[in-house]
């Protein structure tokens, strides 16, 4: 690796972010054209997989040279995600609270599960702080927080051998599925919408891909594998067209082997995202093409600033849900609202990009300029 940032990861992450934004506004006309309509998995799976790859690229080398410092760095990143999640919950809560006050329609609260906040405010506060209470459409970041907290262990294992990391991760995944392990919700009973103990396997797969990239390895090319992956992806696309339901009941075979449970990332979903990633990796010279493509640029910039873009996108999506309900909707207004929302996110990403480059330039310039006052004495 040349040390240059891999734009493919940023590109797919940017695309996943916009897809999540569209999917988080149910009922809009573009919702039917997003990735989840063509298979068992959705943008959340892609996002988590890429998060694993990005974590490997960002932290794996550091864990080899300075493990304690890198572990703290990962922990601080997890804390940033945690505070970002709290900010998103507060901002979305404020948007919904305003809508309820302005209209007198408290159904908006129940629509995202925030009615717990009015029914049991003290318990809800504890739940929000401990991530036990996750309002609807605000449950990906808590998953990511836990995955990052697990990352130092998974990355260390993957440094020794990707098979070791995969073995440990798959064991935890199996135990989760077979024994119903989960992180509890609070104040309500139950488990998290995204069970981190199951989703960590996808994160680890992403780590293994990143680990391979660091070692200069490429995805194995095999016609059999390509055929199997393509066949599975096509089957999933046809299946999804007729509704993502399991018409059969194969119990006592464990349901995770044959149902489409998102919470515990059932095997058909996991295999689908693995097949799609494998097929994309087979595309020729995608990195070079993306680097040169003007169309890809906005997605790359979005992916590069995924956290702030995701946070703003979530608040926008909740706002647009309410705007659509209260002001009415047509295909044209939907497209305008979605376009405006996407442009806002791209604008934010460009602004952060500009700020980042400007800061770097300043940092480079400061050492030369700083001695001047000393010299002039």
């Amino acid at each position, binding site marked *: 690796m040349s040390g240059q940032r891999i734009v493919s990861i940023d590109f797919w992450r940017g695309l996943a972010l916009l897809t999540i934004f569209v999917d988080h506004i149910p009922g809009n006309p573009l919702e039917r054209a997003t990735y989840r309509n063509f298979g068992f998995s959705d943008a959340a799976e892609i996002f988590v997989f890429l998060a694993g790859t990005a974590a490997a690229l960002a932290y794996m080398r550091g864990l080899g040279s300075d493990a304690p410092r890198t572990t703290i760095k990962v922990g601080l990143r997890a804390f940033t995600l945690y505070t970002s999640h709290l900010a998103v919950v507060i901002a979305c809560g404020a948007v919904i609270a305003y809508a*309820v006050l302005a209209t007198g329609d408290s159904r908006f609260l129940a629509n995202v599960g925030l009615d717990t906040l009015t029914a049991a405010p003290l318990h809800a506060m504890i739940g929000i702080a401990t991530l036990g209470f996750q309002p609807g459409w605000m449950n990906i970041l808590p998953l990511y927080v836990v995955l990052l907290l697990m990352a130092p262990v998974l990355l260390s294992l993957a440094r020794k051998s990707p098979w070791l990391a995969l073995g440990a991760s798959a064991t935890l995944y199996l135990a989760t599925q077979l024994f119903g392990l989960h992180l509890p919700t609070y104040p309500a009973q139950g488990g998290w919408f995204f069970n981190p103990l199951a989703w960590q396997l996808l994160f680890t797969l992403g780590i293994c891909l990143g680990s391979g990239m660091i070692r200069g390895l490429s995805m194995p090319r095999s016609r059999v594998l390509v055929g199997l992956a393509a066949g599975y992806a096509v089957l999933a696309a046809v299946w999804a067209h007729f509704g993502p339901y399991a018409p059969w009941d194969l119990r006592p075979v464990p349901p995770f082997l044959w149902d489409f449970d998102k919470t515990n990332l059932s095997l058909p979903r996991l295999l689908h995202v693995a097949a799609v990633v494998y097929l994309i990796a087979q595309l020729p010279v995608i990195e070079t093409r993306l680097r040169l493509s003007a169309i890809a640029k906005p997605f790359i910039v979005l992916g590069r600033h995924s956290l702030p873009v995701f946070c703003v996108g979530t608040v926008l999506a909740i706002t647009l849900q309410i705007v659509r309900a209260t002001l009415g909707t047509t295909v044209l207004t939907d497209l305008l609202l979605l376009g405006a929302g996407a442009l806002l996110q791209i604008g934010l990403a460009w602004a952060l990009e500009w700020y980042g480059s400007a800061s770097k330039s300043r940092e480079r310039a400061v050492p030369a300029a700083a001695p001047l006052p000393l010299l002039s004495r």
Partner: protein
Amino acid sequence: MLSPACRVPEVYLTFPSALRHTRRLIDRHHSVRVLVVGHALVPAVPTRRGRLEKELERRLPGSDFVIIDDRGAIGLAADVFGRIQSEVFDTEPDLVVWEVGASDAVAAADPASLGATIRDAAHWLRERNIDLVLVDPPFVPELAYEHIYWPIVGEIGAVSDRAGINLLRWYAVMQYWDIRNVRGEHRQALLAGKRPCMPELLAEAIARAATR
């Protein structure tokens, strides 16, 4: 049996179909596991015994109801049905109470798709010998955009009528009460988005359908 503030015409308490599986369990003095998909029917804090559980056991002496809360099921009916399937495999309920339609209304979703999802869900649950009770969304008066709920509530009612799916017509109940004429604590609760009478009405309708 209903408290004065919760009285409604008989028609709202009569389901089109008997709850056969639930009745069988009650007759045999077995526990009835109720999966509640929605927000207003179970207490936000599970340490408090829920009103639905209390009201059911009061109406059906000797029965034992176990409420399983699935507050995480948020989104369009099609997505929630996917979640219900997983919950059914996981918790093996005997009766599913599903508050359906509010998210579909807010999303201006296609009513026909919602109807198809409800039919699929009812069929899927029936195949597994699980009873189903639907609850449609609440009504809020004097809103300029209330019409977005009409096709959704209409479709839920039509599917219920055609397929004999049990439905608590909560939207119609709230229209019948007309919050503008309701006074006191009941009014405050309704304005705050709480549904003080819903557990009572639901328990009454379930008890009638399970002893029919």
